[in-house]
């Protein structure tokens, strides 16, 4: 599904005249429908891997070969911005702790929109969006208010809801349970379980990977730059 070959990324900070290497040749492979966990110290480059796949970051070197439904095998490092825009809408989802939303878009509209982007009808979008909000325990009283005012945990759950309703082919998760309480974490686990059952391929960063026990198929260790199969 996705194969990363010798990925290199460094950040050049012009005003400090400095180059900061973040990834020095990362290779990994994620078979279709499987779940890869990434573990490593803070600053070791975990998020940089995910952001390079999502192309928020531009790697200097290496390949990210993705099996796309629309484009066939495509190297995400070389893909045009327009191709990436398409893939983000239809095939690749990304969940981070941050939420970037229109100021006058309600929580419900936000989730609906990610479905409308796929070409789903308005009615179906509303139904599915409501189900997702309910699943992630976002109180009904919040559905018609603006997410800018939400707490960190609520924003995070809303973010996950937006990504999950689309049932993307590949989902990237950057610490999606970081600030959640136990029961919210369970909801996230449950959603991941369901996605996986439906064939979604996942790459996730979790500081408490034990929590994903039984779901995670492989682990990538940043320190060893190695991928290991879990049995």
């Amino acid at each position, binding site marked *: 599904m996705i194969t990363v070959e010798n990925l290199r990324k460094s950040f050049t900070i012009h005003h400090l005249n400095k180059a900061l290497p973040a990834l020095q040749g990362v290779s990994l492979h994620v078979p279709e429908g499987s779940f890869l966990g990434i573990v490593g110290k803070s600053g070791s480059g975990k998020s940089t891997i995910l952001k390079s796949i999502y*192309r*928020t970051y*531009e790697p200097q070197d290496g390949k990210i070969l993705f099996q796309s439904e*629309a484009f066939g095998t495509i190297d995400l490092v070389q893909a045009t911005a327009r191709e990436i825009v398409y893939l983000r809408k239809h095939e690749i989802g990304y969940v981070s702790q941050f939420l970037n939303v229109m100021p*006058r878009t309600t929580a419900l509209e936000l989730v609906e929109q990610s479905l409308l982007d796929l070409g789903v009808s308005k009615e179906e979008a509303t139904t599915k969006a409501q189900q997702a909000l309910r699943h992630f325990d976002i109180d009904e009283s919040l559905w018609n208010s603006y997410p800018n005012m939400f707490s960190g945990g609520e924003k995070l759950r809303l973010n996950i809801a937006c990504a999950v309703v689309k049932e993307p082919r590949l989902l990237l998760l950057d610490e999606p349970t970081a600030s959640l309480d136990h029961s919210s974490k369970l909801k996230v686990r449950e959603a991941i379980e369901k996605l996986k059952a439906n064939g979604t391929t996942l790459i996730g960063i979790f500081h408490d990977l034990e929590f994903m026990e039984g779901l995670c198929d492989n682990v990538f260790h940043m320190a060893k730059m190695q991928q290991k199969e879990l049995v």
Partner: protein
Amino acid sequence: MKEQPILQIQKLSKQYGKGCIHCQGEHVQLEKNFCPVCKTVYACRDISFELYRGEILGIVGESGSGKSTLMKSLYFDEQITSGIGLLEDYENGTANIFEQSRQQQRLIRNTILGMVYQNPMLGLNMDFSSMSNIAEKQIAAGNRHVRNMEKRSLELLDHVNIPLFRSKEAPRNFSGGMQQRVQIAKALSNNPPVLLLDEVTTGLDLSVQADVLDLIKSIQRELNISMIVVSHDLAVIRMLADRTIVMLNGQIIEHGLTDQVLEDPQHAYTQQLVYSLL
């Protein structure tokens, strides 16, 4: 799956002044956007980009970088010095729009383009009623049915949330946010596939800004219009644009996915622009 752009701009340049020996020629490197000898301003230099159907393209850059000049050039308010512009909806993108007669350019402007100016005084007649302002554009586009025009104007005003009982009032009496909304209604009146928006939210208070941004986004979604949005406000660009162009001294110095330009800026100037706002 090769996608055809709706608008393609190749090497567009606009200079104010004739130039001199010092500043003309292939290899001249100007430090700023003007010639220190003859004072010719090179407001846009070799601008090339593509706009695709249904997308919002952002343009950012400091004051004087050439953003408004570019927008006015695209709307034929300014005559460019050189360059090519191809519109898919005009002669199937085979004719350079900048080389057409004034009459043809008026036709393009009235049927394919819509413009919302940085300064509402440029886009609206402040002494006509809001309805007449919108009707004016429809007449220009060849509409002759008074009843239909009236109906369409009211629909549009309603769409941009101008209370209908104020439709006969001149925009002079309106707040800045309302004036921008009337401009948007006017720009939409001919159903243009391409809409140009120059700093539409600048100078409005935050809550009014939010309304206008929301309006722009909903129009893009509902009507699948392609838009070029100019703003010096990175938050506006982040919210609206899929792809973004960064301009400096009349040139494009960086372009890419909006989140990439903002989170992993490559050019020293873009880094300065982004980090100064963090």
